[in-house]
């Protein structure tokens, strides 16, 4: 389902144009912060993600320690990538006396919308040493293309 933003409809004279512009500028400001200073965005939902791209692929990396590869569920729906699973490493026996309990256990679910269209059927994922790497090949129309300028 395509959602058309109110302000995107051409026949309306958009009263929110200034707010839209402000939002876009703020977005750009945060974006540049990420790229220029190497700043870290505070993650809000487990797992923390690193997303990067090159010409051909988008890479999504996540730190998911203690969850074996076969227990990580990845699904694609349109432009949204969902990562879910459950961590059960906590022993949780009654007879144990805990000195420290810092590891989290339970279910997790995170969805991100991707910046470009990807070929959902060619997505691959590997989990090595608790780091999940998902490689999403960009759709043909989203790949950058060099256009040759012919001399007249």
């Amino acid at each position, binding site marked *: 389902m395509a959602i058309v933003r109110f302000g995107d409809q051409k026949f309306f004279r958009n009263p929110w144009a200034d707010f839209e512009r402000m939002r876009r500028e703020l977005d750009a400001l945060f974006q540049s912060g990420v790229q220029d200073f190497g*700043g870290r965005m505070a993650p809000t939902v487990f797992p*923390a*993600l690193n997303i*990067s791209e090159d010409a051909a692929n988008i890479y999504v990396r996540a730190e998911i320690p203690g969850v074996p590869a076969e227990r990580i569920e990845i699904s694609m729906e349109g432009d949204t990538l969902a990562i879910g699973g*459950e961590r059960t490493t906590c022993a949780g026996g009654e007879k144990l006396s805990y000195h*420290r*309990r810092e590891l*989290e256990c339970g279910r997790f679910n995170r969805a991100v919308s991707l910046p470009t269209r990807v070929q959902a059927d060619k997505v691959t994922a590997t989990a090595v040493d608790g*780091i999940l790497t998902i490689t999403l090949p960009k759709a043909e129309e989203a790949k950058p293309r060099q256009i040759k300028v012919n001399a007249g």
Partner: protein
Amino acid sequence: MTEKEMQIQQKKELQQAGEPTKQEKFYVPAVDIFETAEAVHVLAEMPGVAKDGVQVQLEEGTLTIRGDIAQRPPEGETVLLREFEPGGYLRKFSVAETIDQERIEAKMADGVLTLVLPKVEPAKPRRIEVKGL
């Protein structure tokens, strides 16, 4: 099965006493430590650390866990979102129990280190029967 939702934990950066010579980040790994009658178990979360990158040392009652990452950051990619930074892990504990150094077992799976530190025999609890006259 637990229905609890996992909460995000920010990785804690290690505050080192000396200034590091290498520009490398070190984090304090989150741990679970529990004790049974026979052993002390330590679970440490170290995503990105391979089996060969782990060093465990027990010296004069101080247990040192260190993990070095082998994966280098990929080249030629534009960062779109960065919520975590890879880095090594280092944490020290003082262990009160008398540990049998020879029988320490370490296992690394999916970025979680599992350590079993067996106690030496005399430290095991012994039930003393009280006899009636």
